[in-house]
């Protein structure tokens, strides 16, 4: 059916909304207005939710990314925006730069593509993808944490926070300060007091 559309039809309305319409070039039903489409959508929601739907995301620096809806809804934030009908043109993400957004999209794509089967191979492949994914500099890692938090992608948030946690675990406070460049603003007396209060932790 889509092959019957000529460029005039595609200009007049987004072909994404029409998989079930009985389209022919001579059909009198051409030229749907946005409200007509919305009306159709509310009556037949499932027909519009075809798997080929894409969502456009716009990063804080103006770059746009077109992704499959299935990938975009890995983010609960985006999922709610779509459900609330705020996703007609594109979704602006003022808190995420294009550099970070492209990485997040890469993560979501990989996790959506990998089937949830108990396939050992797929599981290990995903694990090694995750391990490589977080091999970035600290600054990028923290930006990924913030993006995962803002976009509400639990698995990414857990992965990135676990990575930071692994950098803290088992280290002495001096080592932790060095790793993360944390300034010690205690006076020697204050520091001694804190140590004493929590003696067992420092043994």
């Amino acid at each position, binding site marked *: 059916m889509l092959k019957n559309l000529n460029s005039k039809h595609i200009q007049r309305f987004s072909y994404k909304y029409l998989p079930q319409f009985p389209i022919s070039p001579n059909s009198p039903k051409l030229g749907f207005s946005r409200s007509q489409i919305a009306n159709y959508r509310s009556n037949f929601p499932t027909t519009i939710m075809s798997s080929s739907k894409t969502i456009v995301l716009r990063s804080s620096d103006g770059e746009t990314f077109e992704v499959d809806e299935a990938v975009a809804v890995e983010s609960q934030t985006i999922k709610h925006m779509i459900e609330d009908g705020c996703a007609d043109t594109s979704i602006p993400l003022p808190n995420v730069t294009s550099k970070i957004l492209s990485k997040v999209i890469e993560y979501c794509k990989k996790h959506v593509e990998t089937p949830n089967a108990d396939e050992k191979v797929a599981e290990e492949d995903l694990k090694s993808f995750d391990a490589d994914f977080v091999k970035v500099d600290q600054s990028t890692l923290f930006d990924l944490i913030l993006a995962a938090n*803002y976009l509400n992608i639990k698995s990414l*948030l857990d992965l990135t926070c676990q990575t930071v946690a692994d950098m803290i675990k088992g280290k002495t406070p001096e080592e932790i300060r060095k790793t993360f460049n944390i300034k010690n603003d205690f006076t020697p007396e204050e520091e001694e007091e804190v140590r004493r209060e929590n003696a*067992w932790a420092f043994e």
Partner: protein
Amino acid sequence: MSDTGQTRCVIQDTGHDSDGDISQLPDCILHHILSFIPTKDVVKTAILSKKWNNVWTSVSNLDFDDALLYANEADARDPPDETCFINFVERVLSLRDASNIKNFRLSCRVFFNASCIHSWISSAIMHNVQTLDLCLFVDDSFVLPSSVFRSQTLTSLKLEMNCVLEFPTVIYLPYLKTLHLSLVTFANDGSTQKLFSGCPVLEELTLVDCEWLNLKNITIASSTLKRLTIDDLPYFGPPDGPKDCKIKIYTSNLVYLKYTGYPSNDIFVCDASSLVKAYISVLVPHEKQKEVASHVVNLLKGLSKVAFLNVSDHTIESLVFADNMLVDLPVFMNLTRLDLTMEIRKSTVEALMKFLYCFPNLQSLYFSEGFNHDVCFVDNDLTCSSLPKCISSCLKMLTFKNFDGNDSEICFLKCILRHASVLKKMNILCCESLFGDPNRLNEVKKALQTVSKGSKSCVVMFS
């Protein structure tokens, strides 16, 4: 610290300009990071800087483990001071602010400090804990605070205590979804029954190494239960006396059942109409073979609706002693996949063939350990009529792991290939010794691939 500064929506003290990026993260994220770290390390962060000294006090995960006390070999000779650990926990709990505790885990020995431990657990409950994980090594007895069994916030309770579990008169846990009991001794029928009925939304129940000595009749009835695991292998071997406890299970929404045991208790799965997967692993102690066989048959009777069954260890062996009880075995109409996680021996082959008659719709069969050398199939043994019907009419996939290449295995597989008319795939995973002997491997491959197949589209794969 580049242009990414603008992506952060954090209100931050500009006095800490030289601070690393990490301190700029909002508190809730720092809490999330710290939730992956044991409490001892979390407390260490108190000293990093003034900001961090405030962060750790509202971390919602507390994990206290006195195993860290015994970390050095020196500790074995000269037992360290428990008071240090006790003081630490007391200090952490008192310095903590009033925010809710989400996950509380405590693992320690209970000596003279029973009252302290009691107060810590009460404190966790008062802070609306959601996940409580207690691993207490008890010398004598220890009674949990009764508030544990009335918590309005608990969603997951894990108890590992080597003593009698005493319950208060009222047990009501309206949000408990996961209950995991390990090593506990159940006191009597009445109170144990109260526990199972006091959890109206329970979804997962796991009982590991519990002591059923004092129980005679228990009913586990829950319409919400989805997963049930009973691990009944006492550390010191099978119990001596006759201690059959009858356990009746009414769980209409149960999806997953796993049983490992001797099985000393008689389990009747009276209602498991939604069961999808079942794992049965049984060991057979010497003097009790008939008893065990009858228990296993009883257990299998209740699983007739299952779609996937995994039997391991000596489950099939126990059926050898079942004799005419095998007639009692139900027909598993929904079963499409059977996994046999054990080595098939001469003694079990016959029982196995009889067992296969119970699965008329079997589509996938998996042998994880292959055949033992003592199995002796000869070509004439396995004819079309002696093979269970499911193999010739339904079997689509067969996986044979730990393939040795011995004659009986080859004979068996050849027979399957000849008679399985809808077989699509046969996966043969060779054991290491066969793989290292390419000549024998090729011989075997040839033997199997030149058989006239009952199913034209069948593919035999070696790996």
